[in-house]
């Protein structure tokens, strides 16, 4: 079935664009980059079709073995790719949404410098993400994991001339690294206990193990895996890199930080679900982490003014929902939400990119407004996405979110209520953004002026327009497709599709759960409408009344500052004082210099033998001869 083609095609795109890109013309770069991803998508479709995934087949995992990578004692790790239904879902999402974003990016990045580099990195990212999804053992997943982290760093810091962009890239990579450390420990534990890293083997073994005996081990493994997942999927406490990642170009935010990479954590937990199920309280921790994240991120999103930051916190919040879904045992609901979220969040980001493009690089929503008459297509598509994320009935977001909330209620009712409240907040802030952007009067710049480079604006769009205008076709067509998916994605019955892997729960949940959730969503939309369209003065007065609270959420609870003072400053200071001054300068340089000066010292001692006096040379010769003769003579004589 040639599964390897799926990731290799984007890799080829990366190599071609990376090596030759500088000399290629833009259309060629486009063709290579977009073509490789689209081909990969088509290949996925073909493979899945051949495996019968679309017609009820693919009950078992289909594995392809390539070669044995590590063979050491009992541990045997080979490069295998495997497809089962979970992988199928992920593959379709990654390649499908990925293709659309690639097409969009050709329009968005048309005026940027480093064009070929961008697409090379994007293709490389696709390669790693597909390896992550297709990998049949922990190690391959980890390879993909690390690789997407690397590409995230490269792409966040794409505008590498701006310091805060590179800082953001560093932050993303380092925070992820901490998580990866936990992940690596988990892999070691798994390898140590099961003598194999292969997923199917491990999961079947785990399934057969009774819960009581090995709960501690599994709890340990699952918590370590969770550490990794929270880093990658931007959960508390490791989400701080996600808002700063907005420094990267918008297609990057859409692809990596909405639809694919950040979902890697969710995928990983779903993949290793057996381990979580066999631990007593790891799943609870997952749910609590997810819920807390969802709530906190939603509150922060209420007060942000940069449109991309709003969506960033929204992503964090929605990821929290996915974790809740996983944590209450509704794995398929979590994956379902992953898919729908990919649709509408990618659409939101791409739409935001379109808006920013229309406003010539302006990202602050306070300077937008009234765009509905300038960019109608963008408005319609964004409306679809916003409705989906707010949980409008029958749309994709509602379907998946309701499933999660219902499962949460089964698990613990208080989780349901918190989830509902967060859903209300989600609807509110998304529509706040929507209304601020598209309604009211246009408050932005009217004439061509360079977009001011305050820290919130990273977009180096160099072409200026007199007035906001609609995006080119290459950009709004993917938006339209994603809008359709956001609207109709709820009808793809993923939980049913994933049933062989994640058995469905019995029983029909109470209908009122659904209604309350929907009501919360609609209520949020209404309040947003009230605040921002009908009576625009209310937010100001509310903010003034609750000044303290407003400052708190506006400054994201000062989490970054907290981390700075407790973690970053000591580490940097410690590195500077201890590691740099003592270790590097004194110890290592000391050793290096010491060797040199010792050699010099020895040299000057030995130089005394070069006195230039022939007789002293002779004396040395005689001394040596005597010693040599003595040695030989007495060694020989003693025989």
């Amino acid at each position, binding site marked *: 079935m040639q599964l390897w083609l799926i990731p290799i095609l984007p890799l080829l795109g990366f190599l071609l664009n990376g090596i030759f890109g500088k000399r290629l013309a833009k259309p060629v770069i486009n063709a290579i980059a977009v073509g490789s991803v689209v081909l990969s998508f088509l290949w996925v479709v073909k493979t899945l079709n051949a495996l019968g995934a679309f017609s009820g087949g693919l009950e078992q995992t289909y594995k392809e073995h390539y070669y044995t990578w590590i063979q050491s004692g009992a541990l045997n790790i080979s490069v295998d790719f495997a497809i089962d239904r979970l992988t199928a879902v992920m593959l379709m999402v990654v390649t499908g949404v990925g293709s659309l974003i690639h097409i969009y990016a050709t329009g968005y990045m048309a005026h940027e410098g480093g064009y070929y580099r961008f697409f090379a990195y994007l293709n490389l990212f696709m390669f790693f993400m597909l390896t992550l999804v297709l990998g049949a053992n922990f190690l391959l997943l980890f390879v993909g994991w690390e690789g997407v982290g690397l590409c995230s760093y490269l792409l966040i810091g794409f505008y590498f001339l701006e310091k805060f962009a590179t800082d953001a890239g560093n932050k993303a990579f380092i925070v992820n690294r901490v998580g990866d450390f936990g992940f690596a420990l988990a892999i070691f534990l798994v390898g140590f206990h099961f003598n194999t890293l292969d997923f199917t083997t491990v999961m079947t073994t785990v399934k057969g193990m009774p819960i009581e005996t090995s709960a501690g081990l599994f709890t340990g493994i699952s918590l370590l895996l969770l550490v990794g997942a929270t880093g990658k999927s931007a959960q508390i406490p490791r989400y701080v890199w996600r808002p700063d990642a907005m420094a990267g170009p918008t297609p990057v935010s859409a692809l990596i930080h909405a639809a694919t990479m950040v979902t890697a954590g969710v995928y990983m937990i779903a993949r290793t679900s057996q381990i979580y199920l066999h631990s007593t309280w790891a799943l609870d921790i997952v749910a609590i982490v997810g819920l807390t994240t969802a709530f906190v991120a939603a509150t922060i999103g209420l007060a942000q003014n940069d449109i991309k930051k709003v969506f960033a916190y929204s992503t964090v919040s929605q990821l929290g929902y996915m974790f809740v879904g996983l944590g209450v045992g509704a794995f398929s609901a979590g994956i379902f939400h992953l898919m729908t979220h990919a649709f509408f969040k990618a659409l939101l980001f791409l739409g935001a990119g379109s808006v920013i493009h229309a406003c010539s690089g302006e990202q602050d929503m306070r300077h937008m407004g009234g765009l509905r008459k300038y960019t109608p297509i963008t408005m319609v598509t964004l409306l679809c996405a916003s409705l989906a994320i707010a949980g409008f009935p029958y749309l994709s977001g509602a379907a998946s979110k309701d499933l999660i909330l219902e499962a949460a209620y089964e698990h613990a009712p208080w989780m349901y209520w918190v989830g509902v409240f967060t859903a209300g907040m989600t609807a509110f802030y998304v529509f706040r953004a929507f209304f601020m952007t598209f309604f009211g009067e246009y408050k932005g710049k009217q004439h061509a002026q360079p977009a001011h480079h305050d820290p919130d604006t990273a977009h180096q769009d160099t072409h200026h327009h007199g007035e906001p205008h609609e995006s080119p076709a290459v950009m709004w067509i993917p938006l339209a497709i994603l809008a359709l998916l956001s609207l109709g994605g709820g009808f793809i019955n993923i939980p049913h599709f994933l049933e062989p892997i994640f058995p469905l729960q019995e029983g029909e949940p109470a209908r009122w759960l659904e209604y309350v959730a929907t009501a919360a969503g609609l209520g949020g939309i209404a309040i947003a409408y009230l605040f921002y369209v009908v009576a625009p003065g209310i937010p100001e007065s509310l903010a003034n009344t609750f000044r303290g609270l407003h400052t708190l959420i506006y400054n994201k609870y000062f989490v970054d500052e907290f981390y700075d003072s407790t973690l970053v400053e000591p580490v940097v200071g410690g590195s500077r004082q201890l590691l740099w001054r003592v270790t590097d300068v004194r110890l290592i340089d000391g050793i290096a210099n010491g060797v040199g000066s010792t050699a010099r010292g020895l040299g000057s001692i030995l130089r005394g033998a*070069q006195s*230039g*006096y022939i007789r002293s040379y002779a004396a040395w010769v*005689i001394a040596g001869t005597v010693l040599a003769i003595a040695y030989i003579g007495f060694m020989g004589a003693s025989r």
Partner: protein
Amino acid sequence: MPLGPLPAAVPPSWYLTLSAILFALGVLGFLLRRNIITVFMSIELMLNAVNLSFVTFSYVLKRSDGHIFSFFVMVVAAAEAAVGLAIILTVFKNRQTLEIDEVSSLKN
């Protein structure tokens, strides 16, 4: 070594001991004297001591090879003396001194 009343003939080891003494004297002269020519002569003394040793062993082993060797040593010594003295002449021409300690350009 048999002491006491003088024997009629001397064992070969005495010859070898004599050779050792002469060699040691040669080394002493080589180390202690400052005149280049005297140093050279000490070298010749060493070579002669070695010759004596060769001839003695030739006697002990009842072969003539030691004599041949001694002969070659003499030839080489002659050649060496010729060239060495020529060098000494040149050194004297350049530095106007025959003291070995002054010829120390190789210092350090």
